[in-house]
């Protein structure tokens, strides 16, 4: 599903964020992406989401070679992924329903499908009756659930989670992880970036560990 071949990424004026990173993740897998802060986890996820371009090396996701992708193709590629952020990045000026509907509006889905899918996604994360609420009135855990609903509403093949439990209590973190595991069970490939040792110890998933931009261990 995800293949990195000697991938490097360097930002202007600084040491490389990633250095000759090579790994391969199978479709339908659930993988922890671990490493200390600044190890390069977010950079790796941004490369997968094609939000950054590698300085060198080759990336293939779902059989698509990233080299030479046009901007329109990059957008289409991102529409096939779901992304969950640590700070959830919900839009405060719209309802929960509208936040979750945004990927479908972007994708040009039919109105009836938008209604059905958004409601189904909210039901799935246990917020079926909070569609009319503004994100600001929800708890941190509920906001993260909305973020997950938004990430999965278009039924992506790949789910990228960038420290989604970073700001949450341990119990809620476990709930969020269980939720992502449910999506994984339905065939979605999940790459879950975290440095939460409690979670890592509690769940025995394959790990891709980064240290100072290099692979320390791979699944």
């Amino acid at each position, binding site marked *: 599903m995800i293949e990195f071949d000697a991938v490097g990424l360097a930002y202007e004026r600084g040491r490389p964020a990633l250095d000759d990173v090579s790994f391969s993740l199978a479709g339908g897998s659930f993988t922890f992406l671990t490493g200390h802060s600044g190890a390069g986890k977010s950079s790796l996820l941004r490369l997968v*989401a094609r*939000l*950054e*371009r590698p300085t060198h090396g080759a990336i293939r996701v779902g059989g698509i070679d990233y080299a030479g992708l046009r*901007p*329109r193709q990059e*957008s*289409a*590629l*991102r*529409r*096939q*992924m779901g*992304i969950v952020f640590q700070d959830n*990045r919900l*839009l405060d*000026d*719209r*309802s*929960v*329903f*509208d936040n979750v*509907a*945004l*990927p*479908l*509006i*972007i*994708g*040009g889905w039919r*109105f*009836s499908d*938008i*209604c*059905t899918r*958004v*409601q189904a996604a909210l039901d799935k994360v246990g917020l*079926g*009756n909070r*569609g*009319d609420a503004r994100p600001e009135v929800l708890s941190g855990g509920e906001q993260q659930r909305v973020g997950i609903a*938004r990430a999965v509403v278009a039924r992506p093949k790949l789910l990228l989670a960038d420290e989604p439990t970073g700001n949450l209590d341990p119990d809620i973190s476990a709930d969020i992880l269980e939720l992502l595991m449910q999506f994984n069970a339905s065939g979605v490939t999940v790459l879950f970036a975290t440095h939460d040792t409690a979670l890592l110890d509690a769940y025995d998933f394959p790990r891709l560990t980064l240290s100072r931009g290099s692979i320390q261990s791979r699944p």
Partner: protein
Amino acid sequence: MKPLDENTAEVTSVAGARWRYGRRGYALAASFAQLGGRKLASATTLMALGITLALPALLLFTMDSLDTLASRSLEGESLTLYLNTELPAGDSARLRSEVAASPGIRETRYISPSEALETFRKQADVDAALIALGKNPLPGAIVVYPDTDQLEDAAIRALATALGALPGVERVQADLRWVRRLQAAVALAQLVAILLAGFLLLTALLVIANTIRLELSRRRNELEVSRLLGASSGFLARPVIYAGAVYGFLGGLIGNVLALLALQLLRGPADDLARLYGSGFLLSLPSLERLGLILLVSTLLGLLAALLTLYGPSRQKVGGGP
């Protein structure tokens, strides 16, 4: 946007909601949300735009009236041939026919000495003086209307010289000069108005572009999130382009209203002034086409400002990214 009802069947019956969840509807709703989100700032911007656009609109409407006056004056321009006082009436009629047959003459009119005297009497209290003279001192005259569509200034002057040389013609008076002066003044005023309008339209363009730029900065999070969710550059640009058009259209609307109000205020004094000079000048209200033209130009201006913000030399990248 408002949330939708849980009942899908009920929701689908709401045409407005259906429209808002389409790509174009979403973009238009987002552009109106920009205006509605910060009401005071938007109102201030629109008012500034309206005032900026009102001045070119007012200049355009005023120029239309001046143009009409200049054209009308040109139609009335004429040469007056004063005839020898001793010329018999029959010779005067023959001379008029001869002049009328000359090339470049649109129309002629003969004013007999008695008609001239009657007109003179109506305009001035000169009865006593005329009685003292004992006879009518006024000559007959032929008023010649050159074909101004065909003849240039120089040709009309040459025509005046030629007609002045005809036997029986004592003097030629060209009533062209003031018309030409008026036309020159109107042309100059038009040029100044065009330049001024150009500067003001440029100002409006910059106001809209700056507003959009600020709005893009304010909505950075939304744009970035949309991009992360797979929004294409077209999807991200569409609300910006719509917002430019909306700003331009509403600014043009306010500009039209302000220009009409100003014109209404100016009409009375302008008519009074024209009446004092015996002119038929009328500061007329603009036609619907003219008002539509202002709206069209202002909307296009808004679109241009949005496109310049997005794709111009100092373009603002929407949604960040590599």
